[in-house]
């Protein structure tokens, strides 16, 4: 396993950090309060090349490898405190662009990828349903072929980017006799007959990333809206999740590093009982634990990047990285608040927002419980 970085990769990370600090953080406390998505930040990230990083040049991307992409996303998480914006970008990159790249037809790639990589269009991914969360075999949304049309009926929920999206990757059951293997992926454009987006869903954190339901009522799609093979939806979905689990958390890794530095700085400068609070073991130990979590998370994440670069299977590694990073991020947020005492509890210090944002990581892209189930299954348990 080779986890060394080239000077070019490190320079790119540095550029992304510099860009994010300068362009993406203004007015964040207010935006979070108002649950406002920053289209301006989105456009700036697209112009910076973030959305298209690992995608081929002919489809509007930069053709970066996995390791470079993860390093850049880590830099974005380090420099940008707007985790909602980062989450929205990641949701599009890994669960919309990547499945279209890997499973789409040439026409789908030509139509969607340049617009998505360039930030012109926004994409959303709809899998979860009111009655089907972790259990994808229980999908109630159906797709029936009628003449030259697919007819979709059902509801998707917790769809990140839904209120602002132009194109959606969604999953429906086309053959119930095949169980979860009868699920099929589709690409749906805003304005398709019989399709509408519900009202935005309020949530605890990631407030700058909008979320809503998708409703399909005899929604008519052309036959070429199929994404991948009929019945191949589980493969499309699983592939997206493996990418998302790794790359989305790269940004959390960057945020963990930023938060650790904030805590070291605070513990060095804040004095109580005539000494810096970092001189008290109870405070220092918390910071040490944050550092250990950061470094173990980094190793797991870059091992995953290395495996994906080598084209290997990474089911268990993606699950381990997702579980460890998301749980570590939550615990480090709690520690950061505790180290800052009363200040940590205030909105002004922006640590409480980090905690609210971090908790989502234990739920999206497969809950911590599901990650443990996947790891157990891979161990033959």
């Amino acid at each position, binding site marked *: 396993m080779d986890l060394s970085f080239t000077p070019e990769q490190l320079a790119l990370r540095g550029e992304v950090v510099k860009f994010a600090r300068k362009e993406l953080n203004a007015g964040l406390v207010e935006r979070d309060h108002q649950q406002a998505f920053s289209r301006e930040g989105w456009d700036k990230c697209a112009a910076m090349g973030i959305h298209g990083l690992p995608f081929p040049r002919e489809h509007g991307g930069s053709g970066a490898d996995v390791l470079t992409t993860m390093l850049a996303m880590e830099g974005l998480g380090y420099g940008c405190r707007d985790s909602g914006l980062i989450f929205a970008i990641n949701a599009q990159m890994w669960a919309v662009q990547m499945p279209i790249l890997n499973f789409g037809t040439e026409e789908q790639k030509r139509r969607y990828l340049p617009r998505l990589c360039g930030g012109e269009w926004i994409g959303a991914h709809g899998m979860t349903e009111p009655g089907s969360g972790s259990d994808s075999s229980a999908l109630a949304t159906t797709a029936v072929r009628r003449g030259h049309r697919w007819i979709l009926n059902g509801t998707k929920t917790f769809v990140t980017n839904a209120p602002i999206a132009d194109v959606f990757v969604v999953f429906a059951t086309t053959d119930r006799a*095949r169980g*979860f*293997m009868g699920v099929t992926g589709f690409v749906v454009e805003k304005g398709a007959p019989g399709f509408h987006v519900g009202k935005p869903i309020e949530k605890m954190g990631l407030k700058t990333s909008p979320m809503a339901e998708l409703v399909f009522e005899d929604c008519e799609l052309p036959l070429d809206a199929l994404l991948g093979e009929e019945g191949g939806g589980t493969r499309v979905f699983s592939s997206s999740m493996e990418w998302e689990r790794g790359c989305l958390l790269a940004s959390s890794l960057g945020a963990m590093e930023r938060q650790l530095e904030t805590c070291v700085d605070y513990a060095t400068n804040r004095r109580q009982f005539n000494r810096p609070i970092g001189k008290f073991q109870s405070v220092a130990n918390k910071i040490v634990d944050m550092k250990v979590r950061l470094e173990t998370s980094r190793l797991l994440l870059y091992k995953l990047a290395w495996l994906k670069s080598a084209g290997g299977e990474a089911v268990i590694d993606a699950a381990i990285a997702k579980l460890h990073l998301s749980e570590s991020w939550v615990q480090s947020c709690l520690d950061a608040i505790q180290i800052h005492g009363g200040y940590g509890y205030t909105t002004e210090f922006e640590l409480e927002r980090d905690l609210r944002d971090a908790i989502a990581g234990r739920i999206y892209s497969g809950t911590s419980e599901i990650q443990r189930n996947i790891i157990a*299954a891979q161990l033959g348990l």
Partner: protein
Amino acid sequence: MTEIHDYVRMEFAPERASVAPDENLLAQGIVDSLGILKLVTFLEQRFGFEAADDDLVPENFSTLEMIRDFVERKRKP
């Protein structure tokens, strides 16, 4: 076949005495998306082969008979 049957029954349908060879495991929800990970891991470890992404199709996993045929195909040199 007996070994595969016993594994599937004990792991996914422990309340039942047996699973018929032609019973549709996917349609009945006996094997779900998480179960397939367990089943593939068991087959790979027990019969010494590696399943590819392309192998994960209903034609290979819908019934015990199909799983048996799939394992036999994978074990052929």
